[in-house]
């Protein structure tokens, strides 16, 4: 037998050959996975490189403090940045409590029957509905029927409904992942359901909930179509002073600049993308930080 075939002398030639094949297949698969991973990273790196190269020259404090203008040199994203921050804040304020509360109700309080399953299926479906449909809904419901006009509030409420399914599903998963033994222990000590949920289940589920929130917020921050539908403006030279004011958001502003023929505006667009990415990164860091704090205390 060859040296590599049977190190212990317990396998015959055929078994040794099969072993070699199995090892080779395993190695090939591992290398494939490695390749795909680096491919994805590569795409991201290329994108970042491209955007930075085009956009960084335009990135400056002046850029952040100026309103958009017909002259590229004087243009900035102050209004869009402000609008995005306003919109995102209100969306978070609305979507997180509603989503988490809905998830708590569905997981802890509702009786598992046909109605509950019906709701579950529908929420999952809603998560896949194209965002422009939400824009239509927002336009009809918030802008017109509720007379909110083309305001930050209308935009936030539209985005809330958009990301609510994601928040609910992720929160439900996180709550479900809390072992039932914890609940049983709490009940056995004479706790009510609310005490158990609020003091044990929720704190333990926070990492998972936050993951869902991060995902949802990331989606919200990049949505353009629904906001256009509800009437976010494309050329805004003021900063919203309150939720009732009109506004614009970064993706719209970027889109606006990209559609202009001048080369300079493309650079501005790239700078806008960089700003958007930074906002996204900051948001996620906050969430990861909070998650880390809670995860540190919760180990199964």
């Amino acid at each position: 037998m060859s040296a590599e075939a049977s190190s212990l002398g317990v396998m015959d030639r055929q078994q040794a050959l099969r072993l070699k094949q199995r090892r080779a297949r395993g190695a090939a698969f591992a290398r494939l996975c490695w390749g795909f991973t680096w491919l994805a990273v590569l795409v991201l790196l290329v994108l970042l490189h491209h955007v930075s190269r085009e956009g960084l020259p335009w990135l400056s404090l002046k850029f952040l403090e100026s309103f958009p203008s017909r002259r590229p040199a004087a243009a900035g994203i102050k209004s869009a940045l402000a609008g995005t921050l306003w919109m995102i804040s209100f969306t978070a304020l609305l979507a997180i409590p509603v989503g988490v509360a809905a998830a708590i109700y569905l997981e802890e309080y509702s009786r598992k029957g046909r109605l509950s399953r019906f709701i579950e299926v529908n929420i999952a479906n809603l998560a896949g509905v194209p965002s422009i449909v939400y824009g239509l809904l927002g336009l009809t419901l918030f802008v017109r029927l509720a007379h909110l006009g083309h305001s930050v509030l209308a935009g936030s409420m539209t985005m809330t409904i958009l990301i609510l399914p994601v928040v609910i599903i992720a929160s439900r998963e996180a709550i479900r992942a809390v072992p039932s033994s914890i609940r049983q222990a709490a009940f056995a000590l004479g706790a009510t359901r609310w005490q158990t949920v609020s003091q044990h289940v929720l704190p333990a589920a926070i990492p998972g909930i936050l993951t869902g929130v991060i995902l949802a917020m990331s989606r919200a921050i990049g949505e353009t179509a629904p906001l256009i539908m509800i009437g976010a403006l494309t050329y805004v030279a003021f900063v919203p002073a309150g939720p009732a004011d009109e506004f614009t958001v970064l993706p719209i502003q970027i889109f606006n600049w990209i559609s202009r023929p001048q080369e300079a505006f493309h650079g501005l667009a790239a700078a806008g993308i960089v700003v958007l990415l930074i906002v996204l990164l900051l948001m996620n860091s906050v969430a990861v930080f909070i998650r880390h704090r809670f995860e540190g205390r919760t180990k199964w």
Partner: protein
Amino acid sequence: MVTTTATETPTLKPIAFAVRESLAAAQETAAPVIETRGLTIRYSGKPAVIDVSLLIPEQRITAIIGPSGCGKSTLLRHFNRMNEFIAGVTTEGSVLYRGIDLYARDIDPVEVRRCIGMVFQKPNPFPKSVFENIAWGPRINGLVRSTHQARELVERSLMQAGLWDEVKDRLHENGLGLSGGQQQRLCIARALAMEPEVILMDEPCSALDPVSTARIEDLLFELKDRYTIVIVTHNMQQAARVSDYTAFLVNGVLVEFGETPQVFTRPREKQTEEYVTGRFG
């Protein structure tokens, strides 16, 4: 007295009488703390416990033994209304705690669980500090009103559970960092902190090594002075070592109930004899 309903097993009723006799005959008058009468429990129609009538004597350790799936855990969980969290559970008959029907409409399950505590098979401390684990229950139930009281209670409970020396310097470390045996003693301390009257234990040592098991068994001897303990175990030697009374269930039916020495030296029923000598189950 036990009322006779139409049942298919007339031999069961005399056992309840025999229990009263055996209790009366014993020199100590051990009053029953928990009593079941004709208790039948079904999961979605399938019976798990059938027409069980027994007494849990005060300040004694009662063991419930029987082959797997005979309804021991179901019966135990019924004593503190923990079966309510399972869908599709229906009950006939009654469970009495000091003469009060535990399942009456005006009885709050939360209150029931304050008097009747539980320790589970797999240690399940909260993912919080040791201190928090023990102080939480009393705090939400209003048993302690200050940090000082909480600290005293935590120390007392940990001493009762025989864990104080090992964790007194680690009170604010996560409870999950303890070993398996320590975690289970932590869960026992947590149950003791509520100062219940009865402690239910569902196979508390089955996930532990022999040394931890022995320590917990010693602990049970000490706790007997102050608490009534009901322990479900599939380890017969443990039941023999630890308990004062033994109830033997097969397929949801109470076959025999009596003082442990009697059950393990001169069992009355043939099925009991076969089970304890290992001929079946």
